[in-house]
């Protein structure tokens, strides 16, 4: 296979041109708003939202063009290096089912979030800056979605990191915010190192970053004597690659490291709860459609590059993340912290699905999660906003408006919020008829089939992964019910009239904030994703991005197909799993209801963390502390020590060294002057002396000549006489 042939430029189509426009419009919004936002009427929010709406409309158009019909791919040579063993670096856009699905989700959520922000961020000093950053963020995420090669993807990947840094740290005058965005940025960098190493590995093996080409190359290889053999030619020169599976696994896990950072997987999930310091709509965007989804999207894009071993690691990491996130969410009191840990848990679900071969189910869950999690976060935003308003009215400035212990009974005051929250919560908990039920069910089924396939040799440990999934179902239902109970049931627990948190006597919040929330909540119902609301197999998402549409490569194809066959054979199990997960969700809800129904308002308002486990879960298993003591502190200590060494030893040495050098040079110069110059001078002086002597001998005086000759004569005589 000739690599240059595979990488040849592909002409653009109207679809790819449109995609380019979709990509560049948010960048334009960013540039305009960042540059002139202050001077625009209404400080430019109409521009940002308008551009978002246009990109959403164009995305929908692209969706209709591409979904289940055709794949559009355009590619140009970006730059080439003058070397025969390096192929041209290409850049291009790739539109397939996965891309357009993500495109629609990202632009849709982004538009709604911006619409919501008009109300939420109203009156903020950085209003135009906020919309500008959102534009940049959307641009970066669309870049990740659209590009066709890993190098460009990495560039946009880093841009997402940077723009999330800007957004999380939007209120940069608060120290906690700065801490949080720094943490998010740095923790992501840790993952990115792995991603970069993965990129390097794949480039070293296959000499291209182009995803399609990589897929073709890997697909053309074969397993021989447990090593993976690929041959291709580059500029006419043949290359034969013989790779051990370990190398491929490690390279794949390198790519996965990027996902671990961005999608907040264990053990790098610590940045996500802190990232709640950003404005709530930003949290919504980051958690639902964009940043954290990027990791899962990367896994989907690079699915062909993972070996079965790598997939197993991915599944296990996902299961651990799902469990830890759910456990940490159990005892949180901050309204956004519950949702943040819930996001970690759900992302763990998706990654676990990816690892178990539930490629389509994971992406399905990504899609449904985007809607209901965005709804939850925007709802939380409404509540925080309302609480702020109420506390401001009542002049209670030291009460935390985000603490769910301070709420209660909001369902009467904020009915729209309540029902949309309820719908989204039901979806998150996986109650039948919601979208979350469908996608969660899909992941659980496939992971069960995966465990069956993997444990064919008798190792039942693989069942831990799906069982973890089931446990997380209970936990999710429990913590979301607790969350809802604290906020919406009982009576209002802060001492002022609850109606003061309303926007006006008729409305609980601004219309511009209510509309996106209700829209998202409605989209959390299962009917929009599958006509049969009890079975995921009929879902258009699953069918569109299903395995049959996935150009599977050789690496894990056998495993994934075996899992798919096993899954198809599990007719009865499907029903059992569906019923079981619904029952487990109900059990979770019931436990929470039983526990909290008995408690009085005062008990709820002053609920403390009593057990060790509660403290452990509230503090996220002290992972932060652990990282602090094992990595951050030693690193800081090393840095301080190095600084001291530098200051005290190196600088000292240099300072005193230079002094000594001056002394030495003085000595050398002294030596030079006295000894070297002196000896030269001495030679001159001696010859001068001898010259003088010789000259003086010949002074022209007869008498002195006479005296010399006499002297000489006497010497001669003495010599003769004495010797």
């Amino acid at each position, binding site marked *: 296979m000739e690599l240059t042939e595979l990488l040849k430029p592909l002409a653009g189509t109207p679809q790819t041109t449109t995609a380019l426009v979709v990509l560049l419009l948010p960048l334009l919004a960013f540039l305009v708003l960042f540059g002139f936002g202050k001077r625009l009427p209404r400080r430019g929010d109409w521009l940002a939202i308008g551009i978002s709406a246009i990109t959403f409309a164009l995305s929908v158009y692209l969706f209709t063009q591409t979904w289940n019909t055709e794949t559009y791919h355009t590619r140009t040579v970006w730059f080439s290096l003058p070397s025969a063993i390096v192929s041209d670096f290409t850049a291009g856009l790739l539109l397939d089912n996965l891309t357009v699905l993500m495109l629609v989700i990202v632009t849709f959520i982004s538009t709604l979030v911006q619409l919501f922000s008009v109300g939420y961020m109203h009156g903020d000093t950085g209003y135009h800056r906020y919309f500008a950053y959102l534009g940049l963020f959307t641009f970066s995420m669309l870049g990740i979605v659209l590009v066709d090669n890993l190098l460009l993807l990495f560039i946009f990947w880093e841009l997402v990191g940077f723009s999330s840094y800007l957004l999380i740290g939007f209120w940069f005058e608060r120290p906690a915010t700065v801490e949080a965005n720094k943490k998010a940025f740095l923790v992501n960098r840790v993952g990115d190192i792995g991603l970069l190493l993965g990129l390097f590995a794949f480039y070293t093996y296959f000499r291209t970053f182009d995803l399609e080409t990589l897929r073709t190359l890997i697909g053309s290889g074969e397993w021989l004597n447990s090593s993976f053999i690929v041959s291709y030619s580059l500029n006419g020169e043949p290359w034969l690659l013989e790779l051990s599976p370990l190398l491929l696994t490690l390279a794949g896990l390198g790519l996965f490291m990027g996902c671990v950072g961005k999608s907040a997987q264990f053990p790098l999930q610590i940045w996500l709860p802190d990232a709640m310091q950003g404005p709530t709509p930003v949290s919504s965007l980051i958690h639902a459609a964009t940043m954290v989804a990027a990791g899962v999207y990367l896994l989907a894009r690079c699915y062909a590059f993972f070996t079965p071993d790598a997939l197993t690691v991915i599944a296990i990491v996902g299961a651990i993340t799902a469990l830890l996130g759910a456990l940490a969410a159990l005892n949180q009191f901050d309204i956004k912290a519950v949702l943040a840990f819930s996001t970690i848990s759900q992302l763990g679900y998706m990654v676990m699905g990816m690892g178990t071969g539930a490629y389509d189910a994971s992406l399905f869950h990504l899609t449904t999660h985007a809607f209901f999690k965005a709804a939850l976060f925007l709802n939380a935003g409404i509540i925080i906003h309302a609480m702020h308003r109420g506390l401001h009215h009542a002049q209670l400035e030291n009460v935390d408006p985000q603490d769910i212990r301070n709420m209660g009974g909001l369902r009467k005051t904020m009915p729209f919020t309540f029902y949309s929250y309820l719908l989204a919560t039901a979806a998150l908990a996986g109650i039948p008829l919601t979208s979350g039920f469908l996608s969660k069910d899909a992941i659980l089924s496939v992971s069960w089939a995966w465990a069956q396939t993997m444990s064919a040799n008798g190792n039942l440990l693989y069942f831990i992964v799906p069982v973890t999934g089931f446990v997380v179902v209970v936990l999710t239902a429990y913590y979301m019910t607790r969350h809802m109970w604290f906020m919406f049931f009982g009576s209002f627990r802060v001492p002022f009239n609850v109606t003061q948190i309303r926007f006006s006597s008729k409305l609980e919040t601004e219309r511009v904030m209510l509309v996106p929330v209700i829209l998202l909540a409605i989209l959390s119902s299962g009917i929009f994703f599958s006509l049969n609301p009890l079975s995921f197999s009929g879902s258009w998402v699953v069918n569109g991005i299903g395995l049959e549409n996935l150009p599977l490569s050789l690496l894990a194809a056998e495993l994934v197909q075996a899992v798919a066959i096993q899954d198809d054979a599990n007719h009865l199990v499907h029903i059992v799993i569906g019923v079981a997960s619904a029952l487990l969700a109900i059990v979770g809800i019931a436990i929470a209801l039983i526990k909290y129904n008995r408690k009085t308002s005062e008990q709820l308002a002053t609920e403390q963390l009593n057990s060790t486990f509660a403290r452990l879960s509230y503090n996220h298993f002290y992972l932060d502390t652990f990282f602090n003591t094992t990595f951050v502190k030693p690193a800081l200590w090393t840095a301080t020590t190095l600084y001291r060494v530098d200051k005290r030893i190196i600088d000292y040495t240099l300072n005193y060294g230079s002094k000594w050098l001056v002394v030495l040079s003085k000595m050398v110069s002294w030596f030079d002057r006295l000894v070297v110059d002196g000896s030269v001078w001495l030679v001159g002086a001696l010859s001068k002396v001898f010259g003088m002597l010789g000259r003086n001998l010949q002074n*022209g005086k007869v*008498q002195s000549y006479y005296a010399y000759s006499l002297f000489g004569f006497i010497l001669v005589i003495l010599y003769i006489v004495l010797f």
Partner: protein
Amino acid sequence: MNIPLEHILLLSAVLFGIGILAVITKRHAVVVLMGIELIFNAANLNLVAFSRHDPQLLQGQLFSLFVIVIAAAEAAIALAIVLRVYQHFKTANLSDIVTDVNK
């Protein structure tokens, strides 16, 4: 009266020394010539003194006669030169006769 040879040799040496001293130190050409005469005479004295022990008698005396004759001739020539030098340099002072090479 028999004078021991050592006394004569000693006198001769003293004469020679005075002569040398005159030749080297004196500035005036004529005095230098006088020093030369003294040296000659020291030699003559030795010749005469040693001739006493000469088996062929008068050999030493004859030698000294020759020396006196040569010394007379030499003195005449030398004086003539000194006169010429005096005419040329307007001095008979040896240290003044020296021509400076740089001049």
